[in-house]
């Protein structure tokens, strides 16, 4: 029971903590990408705003879509949405629940990018340096003598250290805009956390019973899909094993395999019997070559015979097998029917 619990905990935590792990990794990747990325303000009035806003908005969208791509539940959701109703009714609350959970997880990395960008301040500086009022920072009379376009061009150069001559003004202006940027960043973080708090803490007030139901059935859909894949895999494996086994039997001739079957009485020679059995009647080089050749040139049909090897039902089986083969394997094994007939006529 303990082992079962351990296994279960691993499985269950594996599913959820796998997705949470991916979430965390993407958030870290997002923060790392920002620090590795070299922000390069164009310092020209026409392009500053576009560049900075683009950098603030496009990478989050990219991370959001990446979150959807990496999340396995997206395909489960899409499948459940598009499937025909059939004999199982569709429940829209389950779809909503799955969509919400996928969206929540995908929103973490974009939020990290936006908050890191705002806390750093470079993007705001690049976007809004044009809108500054220089008078606030000191007495800079030379600005008043400039024309509008020249003034704007000067202001646009503030984000670039090496292009702007008045160090004092530049430092004061950057500091001011960075403050505003950080304030926006903190407010953004506050809004996100407060929203998450409201959703998590207040939701139980409203729909707890329905929530438990949707949680169970959305998890069920996921597990059912996995179970189906597992069962198909097991089935394919057994199908292949039996198909190949029957192929070997066919090719070596029923005679050899039937000689071996009564050994079920003999428990002492277990090992020997299984080794002999594994040969499946193929003992000579020519036979093996024929097997391998036929495997390529004419693979067996994907249709298995039922094997009835009980010695009590020998005679019965002979007829039964013949009939079954006839019905099930319409087109294959004309050879076998003849061999069956030949064998039994000798008995």
């Amino acid at each position: 029971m303990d082992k079962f619990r351990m296994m279960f905990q691993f499985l269950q935590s594996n599913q959820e903590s796998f997705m949470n792990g991916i979430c965390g990794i993407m958030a870290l990747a997002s923060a790392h990408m920002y620090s590795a990325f070299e922000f390069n303000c164009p310092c020209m009035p026409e392009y500053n705003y576009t560049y900075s806003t683009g950098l603030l908005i496009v990478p989050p969208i990219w991370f959001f879509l990446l979150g959807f791509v990496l999340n396995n539940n997206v395909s489960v959701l899409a499948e459940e949405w598009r499937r025909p109703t059939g004999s199982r009714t569709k429940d829209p609350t389950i779809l909503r629940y799955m969509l919400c959970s996928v969206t929540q997880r995908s929103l973490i990395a974009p939020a990290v990018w936006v908050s890191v960008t705002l806390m750093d301040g470079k993007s705001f500086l690049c976007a809004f340096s044009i809108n500054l009022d220089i008078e606030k920072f000191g007495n800079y009379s030379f600005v008043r003598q400039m024309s509008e376009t020249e003034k704007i061009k000067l202001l646009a150069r503030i984000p670039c250290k090496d292009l702007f001559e008045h160090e004092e003004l530049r430092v004061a202006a950057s500091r001011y805009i960075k403050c505003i940027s950080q304030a926006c960043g903190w407010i953004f973080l506050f809004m996100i956390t407060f929203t998450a708090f409201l959703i998590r803490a207040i939701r139980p007030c409203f729909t707890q019973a329905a929530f438990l139901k949707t949680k169970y059935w959305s998890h069920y859909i996921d597990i059912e899909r996995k179970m189906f894949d597992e069962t198909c895999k097991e089935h394919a494996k057994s199908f292949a094993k039996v198909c190949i086994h029957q192929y070997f039997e066919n090719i070596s001739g029923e005679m050899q395999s039937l000689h071996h079957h009564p050994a079920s009485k003999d428990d002492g020679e277990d090992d020997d019997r299984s080794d002999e059995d594994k040969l499946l009647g193929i003992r000579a080089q020519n036979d093996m070559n024929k097997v391998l050749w036929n495997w390529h040139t004419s693979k067996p049909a994907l249709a298995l015979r039922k094997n009835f090897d009980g010695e009590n039902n020998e005679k019965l089986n002979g007829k039964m097998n013949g009939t079954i083969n006839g019905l099930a394997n319409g087109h294959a094994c004309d050879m076998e029917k003849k061999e069956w007939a030949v064998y039994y006529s000798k008995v």
Partner: protein
Amino acid sequence: MERLKLVLQYFQSNSESISNGICIILALVSVKLYTSFDFNCPCLPQYNKLYSLGVMIVPPIILFFLGVLVNRHTGVMMDEWMRPVGNRSKNPAVVKYLVSAMIQRALLAPMVWILVTLLDGKIFICAFSLSVDPALFSGAPNNTGLDMIKIMAKVPCKEDVIFRNSSFRKAVSRYVRCYSQAVGWSTLLFLIILGAMGRLIKPCFDDHASFLQTRYWSNYLDVEQKLFDETCVLHARDFARKCVVQFFEDMREDTILRLQHPPFIFNSKEGWEEEEDRLHGITKQDQMNQLLKKWYYSKPELDVTRIAHRPKPCVTWEDLEGEILYSDV
């Protein structure tokens, strides 16, 4: 590997220690956040105080909400508070205990942030450099043409030009920083005394026996919810398996009818019985294709009653005289 399993089991068995662990992790995150945050005082008279107090107050609020969010007990407490009475009576003491435990844990990370900011001093310098009397210090720059307030507002900014050759800025910073650290240490002392007093005095006021009861039942609620979730997951797994097997076997029933032959329980080579079982009767490509197509176009209904209550063969052992020795019936 065994040791890791034991450690994990220990932590997961005691829900309180998980909450404590998460609480401590959040406090460490708070410290890391402070050190990686680039504090940027605006050095302008109108905005200094606003910015500094904002940085001192908004992140603790965020950390508090985060602490409440990641705590498992929040969900348990809300469930217990909002549930209809039903067959189980409600005990308000349990809810109160859960709320107080949750709030105490959630308050740790904000406290850590506030203490770290006070002990570091940057925020105090930014906020209160304007309130310092410049006459206390010598060497104030008076040739810049700016009024005193603006000069004092620039004290937090190290790299500013006007302070290049004077020690005025450093003196004022050090002075304000002292205050900041004093406030920080006093706050820490106050909190610790509060905690110690609470611990010592509580047994005088509270009934320890009922406290033991509330603690037991709040832990029980947590464990019960966890077990319910676990059981649901296990059940879903079994349900899914049976549903899928039933679906496979439903496709098989058609095949048997076509062959006009009932399935035998046959005595074949060892191992093949298991293999044949796993086939669930699907033995042809067409059948498999049809099965896969049907899985998409018409999923089976959610009802596994047939397979859950499948008749099993019952064996009865009789001796030579016909007396029943053992029977499954």
